[in-house]
């Protein structure tokens, strides 16, 4: 997708694509019953909390649909392709209280535990309705990946004979394990973050009496936040990196520059630069020192997604640093695809060849080179520098001599 296209062109194109999909599948979709293969995937809305809409996501497609709901597989794909997956998922909804315990919830949990896509059938109260209006109005940077049609469910059945994931089973049946510890344990065993957030969302993790359904949007941030907070403790005794490092990557109209600064004390800051279609810019940022963040981040789930990517990178190298993430969001990011693109974008930047610098000034110059606002303006927004410049450390005085 070329950046010379206007945002409206992109949106029109996506909408045309969507209408074409509805046309091709019209027979299947204009019915009160749908058969297909769930990736497996469930969605929990947040409106009406603590009574929320819960249900499976099911496309009118059979076979291996895993890619439809696995952001870890989406890197390098364009906006159209990702939306094609997402819009094909029909969302069935059942209203449940978040502390509900029912056979229906259990069968959604069974399906979520499956290692492979689950063939199933959904019977709707009425045929699914397209949320074209919602697509048109979609706000930038929703945390949740969008999807297409939805309808209230009358009933559903899934063939969950496929093997369950042993790691997930263990977490599910351990009813004395806190949700936080379960998330960390699953992560350590290599379960994808997107999978862990789904388990949390559908109430499969935590101490038995505390298990609850969690809206998908919140479950994603809770997972990124919990796992990365734990990883931050892991790097505490690591050695600092030696040079200033800059890593970059761009996809889907998002430009990432990650600056890793040699430091014995961990800190993390993320700066977001928004460019609207009229070329106006806005900058927002959030910062934490080694004691962590004690309020919800002003830039929401993006913050935790980037923090996770950065800290898992430091853990894998056995190093410590203080980190600045600059994210520029250009108008080509016409439709929000979910917070996964921040996590995967930052991970990809860190996998690529990094540039090394001897000093901070040159590292920042390079990091700001492709950004739409000046280095001076970016620096003026960075909190870490003023926080550190204004407060001495006790270790500065260890070798101090009064004469």
């Amino acid at each position, binding site marked *: 997708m070329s950046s010379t296209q206007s945002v409206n062109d992109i949106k029109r194109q996506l909408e045309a694509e969507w209408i074409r999909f509805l046309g091709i599948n019209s027979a299947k979709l204009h019915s009160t019953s749908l058969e297909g293969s769930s990736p497996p995937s469930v969605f929990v809305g947040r409106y009406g909390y603590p009574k929320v809409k819960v249900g499976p996501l099911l496309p009118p497609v059979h076979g291996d649909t895993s890619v439809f709901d696995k952001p870890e597989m989406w890197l390098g794909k364009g906006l159209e392709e990702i939306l094609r997956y997402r819009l094909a998922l029909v969302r069935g909804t059942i209203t449940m209280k978040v502390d509900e315990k029912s056979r229906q919830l259990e069968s959604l949990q069974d399906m979520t535990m499956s290692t492979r896509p689950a063939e199933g059938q959904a019977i709707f109260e009425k045929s699914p309705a397209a949320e074209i209006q919602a697509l048109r109005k979609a706000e930038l940077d929703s945390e949740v990946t969008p999807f297409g049609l939805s309808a209230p469910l009358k009933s559903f059945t899934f063939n969950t004979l496929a093997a369950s994931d042993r790691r997930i089973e263990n977490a599910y049946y351990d009813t004395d394990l806190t949700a936080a510890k379960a998330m960390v344990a699953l992560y350590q065993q290599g379960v994808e973050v997107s999978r862990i957030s789904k388990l949390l969302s559908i109430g499969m993790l935590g101490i038995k009496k505390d298990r609850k359904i969690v809206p998908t949007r919140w479950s994603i941030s809770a997972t990124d936040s919990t796992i990365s907070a734990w990883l931050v403790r892991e790097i*505490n*005794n690591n050695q600092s990196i030696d040079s200033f490092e800059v890593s970059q990557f761009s996809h889907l109209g998002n430009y990432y520059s990650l600056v890793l600064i040699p430091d*014995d*004390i*961990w800190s993390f800051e993320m700066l977001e630069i928004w460019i609207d279609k009229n070329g106006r810019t806005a900058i927002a940022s959030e910062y934490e*020192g*080694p*004691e962590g963040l004690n309020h919800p981040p002003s830039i929401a789930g993006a913050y935790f997604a980037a923090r996770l990517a950065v800290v898992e990178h430091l853990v894998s190298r056995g190093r410590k640093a203080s980190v600045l993430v600059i994210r520029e969001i250009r108008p080509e990011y016409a439709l929000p695809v979910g917070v996964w693109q921040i996590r995967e974008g930052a991970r990809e930047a860190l996998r690529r060849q990094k540039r090394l610098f001897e000093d901070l000034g040159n590292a920042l110059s390079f990091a700001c080179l492709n950004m739409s606002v000046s280095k001076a303006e970016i620096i003026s927004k960075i909190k870490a520098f003023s926080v550190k*410049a*204004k*407060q*001495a*450390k*006790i*270790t*500065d*005085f*260890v*070798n*101090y*001599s*009064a004469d």
Partner: protein
Amino acid sequence: MVFIARTKSPEEWKAIASAISTLVDEATFEATAEGISFRGMDPSHIALIDIQWPNFAFERYECDTVVKFGVRIDEFSKLIKRADKKDALEITLGEDQRTLHIRISNGYKREYKMLLIESSASSTPLPKLSFNSKIVLTPGAFDKVLSDVQVVSEYISIDAKSSRVEFSGRGDSGDASIALESGSEGLEELAVQEESKATYSLDYLSKITKAISTAGGSVAVEFSSKMPLRLEFRIANVNRIHFYLAPRVQD
């Protein structure tokens, strides 16, 4: 290996645990024949606590080697807080050195066994400082000064002159200033070798002061211009609780 530390009351442990909890989540104590000590910094390395608790301050103390034991400070506090003022408290290590045993007795006997955590190996050096000004206050008076400034500011400037010390702060909503002179209530001593002025984070100061003030005693504030400050909490039976705080570089 023998390690037994018995006190007539849990109050010293409560003050120590609560002081440490203002800086870190996990604490490693070191016990030697001389007594129990702790030293640690907050994760930002802005503040440091140094505690020395000599063997003679205990009702009974035995330790024939160097023992390090690490605890999650909130879990440790929770158990200590179960003891009433007049309960005797005995702390020992389990045979395998993986658990801490806490016996609380005063007729009614309780024993907790707490799992120890891996203790951190790193040692924390003390800053080398000489102090030009010293202000000794009751903990109540010091806490009041801090709270009075904290309503408008996140930082406190201390300006010590020979017969007068001024505490001030400035924030978006306005300024605060408090003057204490020799003879002011709560001011026990003011000794100024050289006029000193410096600024410190109130968050750190008020947390530690609130944590220890219930133990009574007095607090000595020592500092020099633009240098770290040291609080010395003098509470009965613990020979030294020192709290160091690095200065703000600008106001």
